[in-house]
């Protein structure tokens, strides 16, 4: 069976060219057909989405959009719904993540988009969400209304299941006509969600499209890049640089580059009762999505002086990773991924030859933990369950160790008493960390999260302001003027 990816209102399936891609994992295979639009089809799609958004979406009450999203999410959360069952079947084959990881990850993530949470998204960014529907009075006098982009282009990357929904839903909340470019590594969820929305509220379904093209090569690419007034893009710096260079200067570009997450563990969290539980949470964050998320930890800074030493804590984490490996088996690795791990392990072994590091886990284990006793700066590991623990004398040492990599910083998982949590958060914020999470929640940001420290909705919109004096002046032209 072939699964056709995307959601392409106004373009009949038979009229399009499809590129078939086979995926294989966990002893099963699946063929995904990705749409390949020519320039005329791309232009037609852009026009269709923009015109429909203008005529329909922008005239809808936000409440109606929220109701539709909520209904679509409810179906995706229902394990008996055929689409949810399809997702649970196909996503492990396409992304390589094991079934349980996909199932738990989907449920945990989709919960962030129920109606109460969507209202939270709005409340996070707008003092008065009514501004999305009409002019609202402001405290200084005058009135404000916000408008989303006419055509918002999402360029998604990576294989973390359903990650695309975050920006897609944000776009819908601000009534943007949206076109999403699927990531080759997870080309399914966004299209399913869009089709579900179209089924629930056909008018909304005309205002968004999900497609695919080969980045940098397709003839259709310039059409999309010229048509969008706002582009939200995910990917490595190289990809983002290339993309930015192709955009007109008037296009608003919102890039989300690759990031590196880390954890910090204070000595007060390291006693014989708390440490094992904490190690389990840290191992969970490492295991979930195989450290492929921007929020995934690659390094833990562990403070010395607790009743459990950093070296002992490393053993606890290793033990928990070993335990999790049987419940959530690691994805099959590509040659390149195996080489990344081997090269990282090799470098750590070299350090161990000097006595400067201790490497836990055999090469054949699906995880590796290395522990170093001297402070060292943040650095990526080999990914796919490879973690470095760095002992530090004091939590105050940590900001300087991560500061050189400001542009790569985002999430820090912190286990510390409240006073020190705030002190460290302040220091880390100064060097560029934008999200503080507890261990165990690093890969599950809250609804309304300020992704990369930015506004999910506010960055998308433009304000129209009626100054108070304009209203006053207008009074002079009213039919009832004296």
């Amino acid at each position, binding site marked *: 069976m072939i699964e056709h990816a995307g959601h392409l209102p106004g373009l009949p399936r038979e009229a399009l060219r499809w590129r078939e891609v086979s995926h294989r994992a966990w002893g099963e295979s699946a063929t995904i057909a990705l749409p390949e639009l020519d320039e005329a089809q791309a232009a037609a799609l852009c026009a269709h989405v923009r015109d429909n958004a203008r005529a329909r979406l922008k005239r809808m009450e936000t409440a109606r959009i929220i109701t539709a999203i909520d209904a679509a999410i409810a179906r995706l959360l229902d394990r008996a719904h055929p689409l949810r069952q399809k997702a649970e079947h196909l996503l492990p084959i396409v992304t390589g993540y094991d079934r349980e990881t996909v199932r738990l990850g989907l449920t945990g993530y989709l919960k962030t988009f129920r109606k109460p949470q969507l209202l939270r998204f709005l409340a996070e960014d707008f003092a008065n969400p009514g501004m999305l529907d009409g002019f609202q009075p402001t405290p200084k006098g005058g009135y404000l209304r916000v408008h989303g982009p006419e055509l918002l282009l999402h360029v998604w*990357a*990576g*294989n*973390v299941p359903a*990650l695309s929904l975050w920006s897609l839903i944000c776009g819908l909340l601000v009534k943007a006509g949206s076109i999403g470019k699927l990531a080759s*590594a997870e080309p399914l969820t966004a299209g399913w969600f869009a089709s579900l929305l179209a089924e629930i509220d056909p008018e909304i379904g005309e205002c968004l499209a999900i497609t695919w093209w080969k980045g940098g090569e397709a003839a259709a690419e310039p059409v999309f890049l010229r048509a969008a007034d706002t582009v939200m893009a*995910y*990917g*490595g*710096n*190289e990809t983002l640089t290339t993309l930015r260079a192709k955009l007109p200067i008037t296009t608003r570009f919102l890039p*989300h*580059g*690759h*990031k*590196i*997450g880390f954890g910090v563990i204070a000595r007060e969290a390291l006693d014989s009762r708390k440490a094992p539980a904490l190690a389990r949470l840290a191992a969970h964050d490492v295991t979930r*999505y*195989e*450290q*492929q*998320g*921007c929020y*995934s930890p*690659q390094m833990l800074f562990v403070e010395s002086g607790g009743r459990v030493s950093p070296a002992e804590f490393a053993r606890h984490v290793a033990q928990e990773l070993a335990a999790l490996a049987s419940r959530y088996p690691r994805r099959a*690795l*590509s*040659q*390149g*991924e*195996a*080489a*990344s*791990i*081997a*090269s*990282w*392990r*090799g*470098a750590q*072994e*070299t*350090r*161990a*030859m*000097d*006595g400067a590091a201790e*490497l836990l886990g055999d*090469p*054949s284990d699906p995880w590796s933990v290395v522990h170093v006793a001297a402070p060292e700066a943040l*650095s*990526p590991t*080999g*990914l796919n369950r490879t973690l470095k623990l760095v002992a530090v004398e004091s939590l105050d040492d940590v900001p300087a160790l991560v500061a*050189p*990599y400001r*542009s*790569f910083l985002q999430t820090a998982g912190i286990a510390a008493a409240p006073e020190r949590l705030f002190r460290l958060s302040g220091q880390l914020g100064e060097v560029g960390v934008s999200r503080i999470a507890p261990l165990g929640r690093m890969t599950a940001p809250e609804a309304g999260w300020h992704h990369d420290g930015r506004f999910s909705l506010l960055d998308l919109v433009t304000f129209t302001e009626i100054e108070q004096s304009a209203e006053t002046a207008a009074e002079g032209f009213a039919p009832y003027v004296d």
Partner: protein
Amino acid sequence: MTQAEIIAALLAFIALPDVSEAEFEAMALKVFAYQFRNNAPYKRFCLQRGRTPLSVRRWRDIPAVPITAFKDLTLSCSPPEAAERVFMTSGTTQGIRGRSYHPTLDVWRRSMLVNFRARFMQGRERIRMGILFPDEAELPNSSLATYLSLAKHECATPDSQTFINAAGLDLGGLLSALEQAEKSSEPYALLGASYSFVPVLDALAASGRRFALPEGSRILDTGGFKGQSRELGPDEFYDGLSAAFGVPRSSCINMYGMTELSSQLYDDGNAACPSVKSGPHWIRSRVVDPLTGTDLPEGQRGVIVHHDLAHFNCVAAILTEDAGEIVPSGFKLLGRVDGEASKGCSVAVAEFLAAARG
């Protein structure tokens, strides 16, 4: 074994016409025991792997050190400051240079010469050489410069010349030597770094010059392009050499060597690429799974490990960053093993290093 004893044993081993698997194994285990005892970082590495001379019974189980270790560690069984020669890598990829310490070059030279005669000279005592690489005096820390100088000293006719020095390539000198060689009936040999041939090929192509070197002429290139010249695919490169110099691709021999070894491996010409590489009886190569280090069956792509017994003072077993596959008469070299970018949105090593370099 003392250093003198291991050197004597190795020289005798190299002098043998060929050895059996059991003989190689016995010598490999002796070298391993010597290195385990005298090379402290290597000993720690082996202990970490749970391998000691007492537990290791097969040469394939001798722990192989990742080649990057030569950059970060001093791997030497003798005091490094007393080394007769230190060979350093060019450091082109990361700026840090890997080092190999040689308390004496006796074993290195013997290994080079016996093998060079067999694989490149092929029965000739001497041949007129043109060398496209600076000599040993100019680059004393370059194992390739030392290799080519030794080749010239031992196997070249007196009218052989080196055409690259600090001032660069002496193209005029090279062209007139090639002209002379073309007119004579004596075979000619061109030897150098792969990237040194590229400007010569470009200059010849620009001027439309071609040579037809006498039968028996041959070419030796090594090391790839390393960003020193434009990159050429193997077929483009050997077709270019063959057309420019009139030497058939089957007489274009690629030497595969590295600073971190004391022996070289060769193919028997590049009529077809990738060619099959093999070494002399004192080096054996394996192809392993990069993660587990276990041997892969013939025809399966993995990472190459060399066990070069002549590299007695450092570490004989080296895990390279080269991809390859085992074939009946040796192995095929399939380029470098590169790490992969993250499949998601976490930053991976390559991007991070690129940013750190600025």
